[in-house]
């Protein structure tokens, strides 16, 4: 640990951050260092460690100090570590947290994991040695020093021998695993070819296949993980398994759907179901295929224009959703998707879809402006209600609505009811110009 120097944590010119990892504790050799809760940052030139609470406490070490490094696997109650062996301290090293150490290696203990990526990136940097090509603007003390040369050589030989042995052993295990894997893949490939041949025959109608046989074939494909577009066209991707799953899901989702206003996105369902299962989880495709088979059950799968997929209760009709959207917007005069989400207790994604649906049906109008708020942040789109104009706009109850799509006329901005105060003249023009074509004709009637 005496190879580290105090640093300010800022990158030098030509120095780039490669990867950082939180939750890393430092060890001086085998002893825990006082530097226990921090993040380690790897740059093209240095290894930096910074305390998580006190950002002023920051130390660094040039990568040239590193001789080599190795992984130390996690154990019971022990985090995985990377052990880094270092050159002796150079004479011109800047002061750091340790004046002196009896060890020539340190350890990084990854309490929040991340050692795999870090090790990979560190290997890359140590191979590329980019600090040699583009020296950072401040001169870095390097790890070479002739005086320490001889002592270094002796220690290193032993260490290198140890790595070599370990590498050989790991290699042997891996290569056996890879060999077995290759053999397995050859057999799997045979299965793929057989299935292709069968699928082609089904397509060309060579021989009579019963429904049962087709279903069985599909379940074989499912087991092997083979996709088959031919059968999918004629019979869909679902199997008996998915049919059963659909029934289970239909029952299981009743209560959660009711709680969430009758609709949940497919990703919400995915998380809910898999969290409940704990094991033998469903793949996203399993879920999708099961939902496609809902048909005569209590829920259905629905895809919105945006591509968002939801599971919806049969009992929740489209009219109800649009009516509720209209009600809420009428109450408030105008609503953003976020506000609507809060009102209904829905996710922003789904509340937006409802408002879009109402817009599609001609009941709502969208004001797509970009607004500045007081904190200089930007708010999203606003959905506002189109008002029905009569000769006496003031007398008309603002909450009245008919079941037919509202007439596409705007209130005279000169008539000031509370709800229409949002509509300034500019906005009306803007909306008209944006291609809400039906408005143009009406607006030109006068009343602007």
């Amino acid at each position, binding site marked *: 640990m005496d190879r580290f120097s105090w640093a300010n944590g800022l990158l030098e010119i030509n120095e780039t951050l490669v990867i950082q990892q939180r939750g890393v504790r430092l060890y001086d050799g085998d002893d825990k260092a006082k530097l226990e809760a921090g993040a380690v940052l790897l740059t093209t030139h240095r290894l930096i460690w910074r305390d998580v609470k006190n950002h002023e406490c920051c130390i660094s070490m040039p990568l040239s100090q590193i001789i080599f490094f190795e992984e130390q696997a996690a154990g019971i109650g022990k985090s995985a570590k990377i052990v880094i062996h270092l050159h002796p301290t150079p004479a011109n090293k800047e002061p750091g947290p340790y004046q002196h150490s009896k060890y020539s290696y340190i350890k990084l203990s990854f309490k929040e994991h991340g050692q795999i990526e870090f090790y990979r990136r560190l290997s890359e940097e140590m191979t590329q040695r980019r600090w040699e090509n583009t020296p950072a603007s401040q001169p870095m003390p390097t790890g070479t020093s002739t005086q320490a040369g001889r002592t270094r050589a002796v220690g290193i030989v032993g260490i290198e021998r140890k790595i070599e042995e370990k590498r050989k052993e790991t290699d042997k295990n891996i290569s056996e695993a890879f060999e077995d894997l290759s053999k*397995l893949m050859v057999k799997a490939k045979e299965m793929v070819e057989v299935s292709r041949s069968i699928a082609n*025959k089904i397509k060309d109608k060579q021989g009579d296949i019963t429904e049962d046989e087709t279903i069985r074939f599909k379940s074989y494909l499912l087991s092997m993980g083979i996709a088959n577009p031919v059968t999918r066209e004629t019979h869909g991707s679902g199997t008996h398994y998915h049919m059963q799953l659909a029934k289970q899901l239909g029952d299981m989702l009743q209560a959660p759907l009711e709680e969430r206003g009758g609709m949940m996105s497919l990703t919400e369902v995915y998380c809910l179901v898999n969290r409940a299962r704990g094991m*033998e989880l469903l*793949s996203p495709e399993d879920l999708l295929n099961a939902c496609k088979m809902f048909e005569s059950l209590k829920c259905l799968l629905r895809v919105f224009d945006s591509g968002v997929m939801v599971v919806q209760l049969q009992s929740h009709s489209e009219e109800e959703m649009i009516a509720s959207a209209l009600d809420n917007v009428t109450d408030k005069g105008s609503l953003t998707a976020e506000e609507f989400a809060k009102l209904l207790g829905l996710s922003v994604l789904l509340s937006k879809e409802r408002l879009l649906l109402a817009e599609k049906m001609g009941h709502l109008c969208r004001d797509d402006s970009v607004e500045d708020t007081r904190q200089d942040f930007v708010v999203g789109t606003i959905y506002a209600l189109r008002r029905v104009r009569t000769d006496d706009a003031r007398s008309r109850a603002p909450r009245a609505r008919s079941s037919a799509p509202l007439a596409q006329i705007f209130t005279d901005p000169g008539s000031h009811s509370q709800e229409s105060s949002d509509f300034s003249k500019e906005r009306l023009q803007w909306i008209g110009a944006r291609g809400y074509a039906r408005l143009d004709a009406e607006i030109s009637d006068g009343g602007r």
Partner: protein
Amino acid sequence: MRRGVGAGAIAKKKLAEAKYKERGTVLAEDQIIQMSKQLETFKSHLEEFASKHKQEIRKNPQFRVQFQEMCATIGVDPLASGKGFWSEMLGVGDFYYELGVQIIEVCLALKHRNGGLITLDELHQRVLKGRGKYAQDVSQDDLVRAIKKLKVMGSGFGMIPVGGSYLVQSVPAELNMDHTVVLQLAEKKGYVTVSEIKESLKWEKERASHVLDHLLKEGLAWLDSQAAGEPQYWLPALFSELTSRDITPEEANQMTP
């Protein structure tokens, strides 16, 4: 016309079989029966493999990558279904599907801040943190594969190449080439201005404004109109440890004038 019923149909079928056997081709039905036997054999090979190397898959991300790539080469998707052999016997399924859940949760938790766009690095960090000390470590390749699977659920998951790594999108916002290029430009400093876009990409002001407005509307960018010079469009997804810090509400109250 009903299939396979009655003496006439049986005779017809026998004739067809005979014809096919003459030519040396096998009927589809026979092949399906044959396949069922081959499947049993394959299953036992897989079981043997699993008993020897299941741990390797769990522990060694390199091995996982090799495994996935080999499967892809021969046309097999080991993650297609939880009911597949691969998933059941090697346990690969649960590993990736659970990761999928964790990825969705992290993205959802941060959406209010970054609009649904997050760097792969940050996602990786947060997923690791969420998994806790005693869970299996995951590599970025693992995350990428899990994300690819999430796409089928239509929630807008996708990956945008930026600055040597990726931005992970988790909302169905439409991002075309123009948007992507601006994101890439913003990657270095975490923000971008209209002038920078005009200079680097040689666009007109309207095109730059249009793209930036879209990013603002989707909640992916924040506008700093008080910046010296001209307004800056910041991307929360690109905020890094070195340039930003999470602060508590108390600290925030002390800092604002």
